[in-house]
């Protein structure tokens, strides 16, 4: 049942993908309302799919790659819907919808039959670790998108020859504010996620976990965002440089999430 619902979700999300695609090609807002409806309905179907997966597997469905991708897509849509409710930013959809579609599609393609979960995952800390980390990543993705929108809009304003982006993208202030708020939500979540992961690993694994590449990269991610937030608060860092750092930060997040998956690491149970 959860797989069928996930396929329905994909169908709904594909409307969002179509919107992003057409909007980029025509440089005009195309099908936005339809896409918003599609994403909203997809979100509900997606939520149901996760609930069913939970019931079918009798544990929160975040224990293998298929489930992790699906859950990640879900929290990104959640982050989008929250920021849309707050800012009414249509342009954000162009970034969010394709990623959400790809993640959900990937989840669909590598779907594996539910297996009994490994013993080490039966810990409360694990179920704090994953959702908080993912929610943090979703917030960083919003900050990343806001950063890109900022750079494009700044470029348009500095170049003084307004083109399609100038009209479609929000003001610099809004991009900067969205980026900052996303960071201030994402950073505590990531901190909590890392802390929960460490607590859990300490109980479940032997000492070697600390040198797992994913953990090292997570700490680098955490440091980058810590520096960014520090300078924002203490030195009033904003605008272009803040936007660039949000973008770099998310690239490292992606690397942490995808690039460091290899056998023998403490996170390898999530691989098959």
């Amino acid at each position, binding site marked *: 049942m959860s797989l069928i619902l996930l396929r329905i979700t994909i169908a709904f999300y594909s409307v969002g993908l179509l919107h992003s695609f057409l909007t980029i090609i025509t440089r*005009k807002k195309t099908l936005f309302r339809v896409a918003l409806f599609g994403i909203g309905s997809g979100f509900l179907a997606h939520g149901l799919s996760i609930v069913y997966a939970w019931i079918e597997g009798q544990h929160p469905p975040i224990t293998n790659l298929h489930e992790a991708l699906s859950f990640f897509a879900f929290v990104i849509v959640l982050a989008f819907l929250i920021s849309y409710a707050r800012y009414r930013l249509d342009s954000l959809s162009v970034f969010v919808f394709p990623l959400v579609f790809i993640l959900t599609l990937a989840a669909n393609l590598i779907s594996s039959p539910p297996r009994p979960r490994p013993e080490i995952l039966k810990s409360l800390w694990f179920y704090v670790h994953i959702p908080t980390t993912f929610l943090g990543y979703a917030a960083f993705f919003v900050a990343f998108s806001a950063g890109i929108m900022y750079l494009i*809009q700044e470029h348009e*304003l*500095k170049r*003084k*020859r*307004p*083109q399609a982006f*100038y*009209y479609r993208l*929000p*003001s*610099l*202030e*809004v991009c900067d504010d969205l980026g900052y708020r996303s960071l201030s939500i994402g950073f505590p979540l990531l901190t909590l996620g890392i802390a929960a992961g460490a607590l859990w690993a300490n109980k479940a694994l032997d000492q070697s976990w600390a040198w797992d590449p994913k953990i090292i990269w997570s700490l680098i991610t955490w440091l980058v965002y810590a520096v960014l937030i520090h300078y924002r608060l203490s*030195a*009033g*860092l*904003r*605008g*272009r*440089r803040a936007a660039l750092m949000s973008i770099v930060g998310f690239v490292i997040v992606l690397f942490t999430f995808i690039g460091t998956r290899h056998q023998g690491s403490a996170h390898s149970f999530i691989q098959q």
Partner: protein
Amino acid sequence: MNIVLVGVSHRTAPVNIRERVHFPEPKLVQALELLRSRYELAEGMILSTCNRVEVLAHTPDPPEGVRQVKDFICNFHQVPYETLQKFLYDFMQVDAVRHVFRVAASLDSMVLGEPQILGQVKNAFNTAQSAGTIGSDLSRLMTRAFFVAKRVRSETSIASSAVSISYAAVELAKKIFNELKGKTVLILGAGKMSELAAKHLTSSGISKVLVWNRTYERAVELAESFKGEAIRPEELFKHIERADILISSTGSPNFILSRADGERIIHLRRNRPVFIIDIAVPRDVDPEINRVSNIFLYDIDDLRNVIDANLRQRQREAQSAEEIVRQEVEAFLEDSRTRDVTPAIVTLREHWEAIRKEELARGRKRFGELTPDQEAALESLTQSLMNKMLHGPTSELRRLSRQSASEDPLRIIKRMFGLKE
């Protein structure tokens, strides 16, 4: 739906012609009454602005209606027809509908998408309504036209970009700061131009105005008119960092702000952005300052470029607007055709109802005494027989009214009576 429209506009006539046929506000009612009484035009409406004069009328005979309206315009303004002839345009039926929609949606305006025209059309409609020259047809047309204008406004961004220097400055400021509430503008040089720009900014919500001028008295004077604050000539750099927006138009022959100044200002402002508008010629601000992160410098030519781009943007949006107009004209026509056929259907039913009653009365005698039940059965039998027979012709009439192309009469009749084709 027999609608005609005759008029002149900025597209067809120079201003010396347009002013000769202009209907001044106080004379409008009089003109409308004349249109109705002397020319037997059932419904009429006059739109008279500085860019266009148009008379819209409902008439049983369109070509004749056009002639009458032309005659009316010439007569009312005492202008010989020969003078006006080559400037007048006229539209009938579908074309008139389309033209009305395009005008209301500001697609025929001199400045594409300018918002005043819709208000002017609404006024013209209200005046005609109070003069009693609006009937159901024009009322339906104009209500639809207002709806089309609203759709174009909300579904395209034809009117959302600025096309004057002052508004372009305000629009740019909003692209940087999002809103002007709580922001401070500093005016360098108390000239006419900067005053005008500051006026636009304050009416768009800016909170504080600072004025700096070489002669302090003039600065005080201008500051007072904005309830702002004058800055002493020697204290400029003490206050300059307070400004989110800087409008410069001094008579200085050299740059008064250098790139180094810009860097210092941004440092003092902890990276909060500054929007500098340099409308002075020769320029007051070193163009290099635009390279400083978080400073955005626009001179007078840059603002003009923005306006040009905005106009091109409006042109692009106009294409989507024309598509909306096309759909709406189509919908309006279909609606009109169904409306035209309704009276015919009513007459048809009344006609057969009369025949049914007559025949029933005549045949009734032969039945003799009947129980109330039998009485009712007879009534419902004849009624349902009639309904069944009329069903074919009624639905065929409705169907035919929705399509404009003509069809083979034999096929129509066959379909009407449910015969196999």
